[in-house]
């Protein structure tokens, strides 16, 4: 076989392989069509699985899921018929902002409410206190660690920085509740009726001697404050 021909044959094979393999790559990177029809595809996939499922509960569930996906398709069709077009001004549809006081007001002092869980943690909050302590505006939550039997806890959040943390009571004597705040020190009561003190600027529980002494403890290092993100749509 001539030398030139021997060179071209593998090159042609390689080009063919490249073309075949490029199809899926380009399909994956294609435009809007890639994301359309997900509900229909998923419904078809589940429908195909249905005949193999012998379990009645699973089969009923699958039928419901398929019906939901078909309904989603019908909602998309309804919307498509409306033919809405996004406005040129991205802020055009913005609702009138509520007065800040109505939306987010939170009074200083002790705030009571139902027991609440702090999302993403195992802390059950029994009440909270908001105000200034050590020159920082913060909120202290008192309650219980649900994953540690009888373990009381104080959680501190600084309003405008990532400063703060979670502080376990010295003994596991049940949930804590804030009963008073004096000069940056929280007075708390546990489920056995014992009084505990928590120094907010120092972020620590106090021993009885420290609580009696009333001397200032070393305060925590201030954390950098957040820079508010610019508003995309200025309030009009």
């Amino acid at each position, binding site marked *: 076989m001539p030398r030139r021909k021997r060179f071209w044959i593998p090159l042609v094979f390689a080009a063919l392989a490249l073309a075949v393999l490029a199809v899926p790559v380009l399909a994956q990177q294609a435009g809007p069509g890639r994301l359309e029809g*997900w509900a229909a595809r998923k419904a078809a996939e589940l429908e195909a699985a249905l005949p193999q499922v012998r379990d009645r*509960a699973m089969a009923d569930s699958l039928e419901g899921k398929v019906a*939901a996906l078909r309904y989603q398709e019908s909602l998309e069709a309804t919307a498509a018929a409306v033919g809405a077009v996004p406005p040129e001004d991205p*802020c055009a549809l913005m609702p009138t902002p509520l007065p800040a006081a109505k939306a987010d007001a939170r009074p200083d002092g002790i705030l009571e409410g139902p027991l609440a*869980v702090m999302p993403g943690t195992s802390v059950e909050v029994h009440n909270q206190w908001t105000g200034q302590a050590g020159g920082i505006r913060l909120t202290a939550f008192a309650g219980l660690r649900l994953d540690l039997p009888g373990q009381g806890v104080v959680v501190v959040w600084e309003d405008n920085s990532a400063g703060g943390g979670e502080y376990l009571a010295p003994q596991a004597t049940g949930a804590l509740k804030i009963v008073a705040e004096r000069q940056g020190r929280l007075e708390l009561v546990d489920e056995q009726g014992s009084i505990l003190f928590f120094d907010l600027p120092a972020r620590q529980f106090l021993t009885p001697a420290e609580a009696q002494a009333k001397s200032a403890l070393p305060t925590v290092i201030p954390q950098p404050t957040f820079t508010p993100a610019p508003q995309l749509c200025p309030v009009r």
Partner: protein
Amino acid sequence: MLIMRTSILLLLTAVILGLAIAPVPAHAEAPAPTPSFEASEVPTVLETDGNTYKLFLPAANSFNWPPASTSYYVQSTDPAALYQLGCQQAQADAARPRPDDTLVILDFGQGYSEKEEGKERVWGTWLFSPAWRFISMDTIAAAARGYIQGYWACAKGGDRLTLGIGTNNYGGYGSDSKDPEVREAFASEHGRRWAQMVASVASWNASSGYATRVTVVGANDIELSWNPPNVTRAWVASYTAVNGSRIPFYNFGACEGCPTVPYPTWKGVNGWTQEDVWYAAWGAAAAWPLPEIYLNTGIHARQWQQMSWYSATRHGLRMDFVGAMTQQVACQQRGGCTFSNGQRMDNPPDVGWRQLYEALFKDPLTRQTKLRWSTDIRWMNR
């Protein structure tokens, strides 16, 4: 000689293409996890699911991590504030070259209700912080509509959003009772009302023309330690019964304490069983799992893989996970994500997603080649 040269060229081509397919992590600061597949476990084949294609090559792993969206613990229900967040997500999606398909959960807090003397009971949630107050279903629906409008107004190209209107399974739903039977009745009513509210937003979304780009679903952060199974099952059953379960909900909870190996007699906190978890995350017609994969050790992923294995062996079909949720930014915002033994709960979104993908992939019974979404939750006003 000729065959050998052709083979080498073909192999090189495949490797180059495989590398081209491998995604570039958007969070460059997050350390990329070492792929745990052995080369022999990875099929060198072309696989299709719908019109998505993946190459499982030893040289280029099959990871196809979707860019993470931002979900929120909602702290303000002002529709204008939510509009800005929707617009921000749309702009983030538009900044990427490919059309995006993102999921955002708005978590409005625990189910709650209030009753004033002489008036009907009003249903909604207890907004966690800073407001620490009750908000009604109407307020929640208005906030969700604000987010949708913001996304719609700022979206570009073929970007799409699925919005989950979320609550959680903690507490007495305004019953002021710890009696599981009383809570069950309240949870049931809350589930019914939540489904109606989500359906009303979905219907408005369609009639406004937004559903070509935005899909509305419900969501619930179901945690085993937050209520006994009968209370949570009542919520799920009621939600599912409304409108013939036509609007799904995503269970974005953990499976705390769940086994990582087959354990048929397992009983968890509050008396939960694997059957209860299965029902609340997949067995109910409206339920789809979007698990929290928080722990750096990967245990959360292995627990959910085991739940999928349970589903496959007990009910004849594996679970179909819609994605993975992480809380890296929430941890940065408020701390408290490190245990005394040094374990951390702040998986970056790509790591959480990969942990789940890998755990599911390792067993043919639970293998899932498409894991659609990755979302990282944060506090809204910080």
